[in-house]
């Protein structure tokens, strides 16, 4: 017994000694560190009150400092919002990066958006919440409407074209067109002819003449203005004009998602000028896409039925509340009872009706254009012919073969309202010719002036969402991929 007693006493003393030595060692080692830790704890408590579980400004700041200065505010929003708005934030970041010439950032951003668009969110807790009667649709992680998804693929495709990766460019335009098949009405399925045309262009540049011809033919069937490019054309020019469609809500409880044309801008056509001096070439580009048409012809969404059900339930509760209050009060008065019971019951039902939230999600990609114009040409000198052995005939050059040592010339855009020239030069065009073909992409309006936060977000819901441990862990994993 004595041995056990001594052993237990020994363990207790050793434990206490080790604990006190740990504490005293910390004190002795660095009192400044202790003060700093205390100050940090106080700061974290203040941030916790403001930002919930995080991430906190110091962590976000450390992350954004590693990014290009002009993109930092967008990266800040991306990092803080986590998975909730990842697709939307990636899309907006991608477009800004593309405009400012940070192509590596743009490629990664659009890949980030597309990877999420392509993944199935089955059994997703946030998606389930969006269908709950008492939760808003905005609870779900954003994936966008088909026209927004298609545009993410479109921009990624252009970035592939810039690098000369025609296979993946074609895959992107194909996947973009596939998004258009979501349309409820058959008439509007696969009517985004520009995407078919761009598939044709990617095939043309990849040397797949048969596939290119098929795509150009299909595109022309949908939109007769889209004529197939010349067999030797090697430069694609695209410019985007105006402001894209806007999401809004309609209905008694804002349960209907509707699309409205974006802010009216004067420009509706453009003339591209290539080269300088004697080599200058200018021609008007062909209107090839209208984004408002694409957004507004999509037809009903599956979630619309759920939101409509929520709205009807809310309306039913409100009617019941009014009936219980009015009829119950009258009945009680006639019967000589206490009307307060009926009024109380009516108020309870009324309060419950207020908790039913059918409002549609209006988060949107605000930097999109209203229209896209397109044109192609042949640029550059003699075509690089394959070396010919002595005594053999030279083989004629294939279509879109690379001219010798060519590069995309200086490009400028002049925007017009019908035939009237406007004082509008647009952004500095993106251009590149890594492969056989070159691409020029421009916009009449810059996205650099847009706020870093996407419109339509619900900050209260976003903050509430972060308190869910599972969601927080998912966001942490997302942030880890960004760092």
């Amino acid at each position: 017994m004595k041995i056990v007693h001594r052993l237990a006493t020994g363990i207790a003393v050793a434990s206490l000694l080790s604990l006190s030595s740990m504490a005293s060692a910390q004190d002795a080692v660095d009192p400044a560190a202790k003060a700093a830790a205390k100050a940090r704890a106080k700061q974290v408590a203040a941030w916790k009150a403001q930002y919930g579980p995080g991430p906190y400004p110091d962590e976000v700041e450390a992350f954004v400092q590693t990014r290009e200065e002009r993109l930092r505010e967008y990266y800040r929003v991306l990092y803080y919002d986590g998975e909730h708005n990842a697709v939307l934030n990636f899309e907006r970041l991608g477009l800004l990066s593309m405009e400012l010439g940070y192509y590596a950032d743009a490629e990664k951003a659009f890949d980030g958006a597309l990877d999420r668009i392509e993944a199935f969110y089955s059994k997703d807790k946030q998606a389930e919440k969006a269908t709950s009667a008492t939760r808003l649709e905005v609870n779900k992680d954003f994936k966008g409407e088909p026209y927004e998804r298609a545009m993410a693929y479109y921009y990624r495709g252009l970035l592939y074209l810039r690098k000369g990766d025609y296979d993946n460019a074609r895959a992107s335009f194909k996947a973009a067109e596939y998004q258009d098949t979501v349309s409820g009405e058959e008439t509007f399925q696969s009517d985004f002819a520009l995407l078919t045309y761009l598939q044709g262009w990617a095939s043309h540049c990849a040397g797949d003449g048969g596939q290119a011809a098929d795509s150009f033919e299909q595109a022309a069937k949908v939109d007769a203005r889209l004529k197939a490019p010349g067999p030797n054309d090697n430069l694609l020019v695209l410019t985007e004009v105006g402001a894209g469609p806007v999401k809004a809500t309609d209905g008694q409880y804002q349960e209907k998602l509707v699309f409205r044309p974006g802010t009216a801008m004067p420009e509706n056509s453009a003339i591209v000028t290539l080269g300088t001096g004697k080599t200058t070439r200018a021609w008007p580009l062909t209107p090839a896409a209208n984004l408002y048409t694409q957004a507004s012809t999509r037809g009903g969404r599956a979630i619309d039925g759920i939101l409509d059900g929520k709205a009807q339930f809310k309306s039913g509760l409100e009617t019941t509340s009014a009936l219980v209050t009015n009829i119950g009060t009258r009945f009680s008065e006639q019967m000589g009872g206490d009307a307060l019971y009926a009024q109380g019951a009516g108020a309870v039902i009324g309060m419950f009706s207020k908790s039913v939230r059918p409002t549609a999600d209006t988060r949107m990609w605000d930097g999109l254009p209203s229209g896209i114009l397109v044109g192609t040409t042949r640029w550059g000198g003699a075509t690089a012919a394959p070396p010919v052995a002595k005594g053999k005939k030279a083989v004629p050059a294939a279509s879109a073969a690379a001219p010798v040592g060519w590069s995309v010339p200086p490009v400028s855009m002049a925007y017009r309202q019908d035939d009237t020239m406007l004082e509008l030069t647009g952004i500095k065009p993106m251009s590149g010719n890594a492969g056989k073909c070159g691409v020029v992409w421009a916009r009449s309006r810059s996205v650099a002036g847009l706020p870093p936060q996407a419109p339509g977000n619900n900050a209260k819901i976003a903050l509430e969402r972060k308190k869910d441990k599972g969601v927080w862990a998912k966001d942490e994993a997302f942030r880890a991929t960004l760092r």
Partner: protein
Amino acid sequence: MQKLRHVATAAIIGLGLTVAGPAIAKKDRSHQAVDLDPDQRGIVSGVGIEGQDLGRMADQMVRDLMANPEVSNRATPPRIILDSSDLRNQSSQRIDKDIITDELRGKLMGAARGKMRFVSREFIAAVEQERALKREGVVDSGTTGLTRATAGADYKLVGKITSLDSRNNDTGMQERLTVISLEMLDLEYGTLVWNGTYKIRRAGADDVVYR
């Protein structure tokens, strides 16, 4: 006895605090990265080619190719170029084609055991540079000696990735048939000495809120 109990209780609590204290203080809610089996379906999935398909496809193609005597049972091992330069992606999925050819080359090299030789053209610049240094006398000739020229190839792996997408707008179900078709092209005669096809047919539906 009473005293012994107090001391024992203190010892247990003390020990517990010593062991668990730092662990409790360091508790955080972040998720550690997890290792996943590359041959099993991952956490995130869609209808396209995924990680697990690559291993299965390569296994099937290697078996198929090794069973072809024209390629795998020649007295002199054939020289083969196996890279992605002539693998066309005509599907609707963005993909780095190298991931397919690298997987296939790795498995084929393991299975061939000298019955095939693989010629690298991807890094020919590095080869040419070293050959120039050797011939200029900047470096010695190495241990394998000098050759008149770099290896010419007998065959080249060529092929296509194609896909067919369909969707049921009533149910939100999406389906994609992806076909990876590879062929061994005789670089002298132009004939195809082997063809292998791997098909992936995958369907799924996104949550109702995204349809």
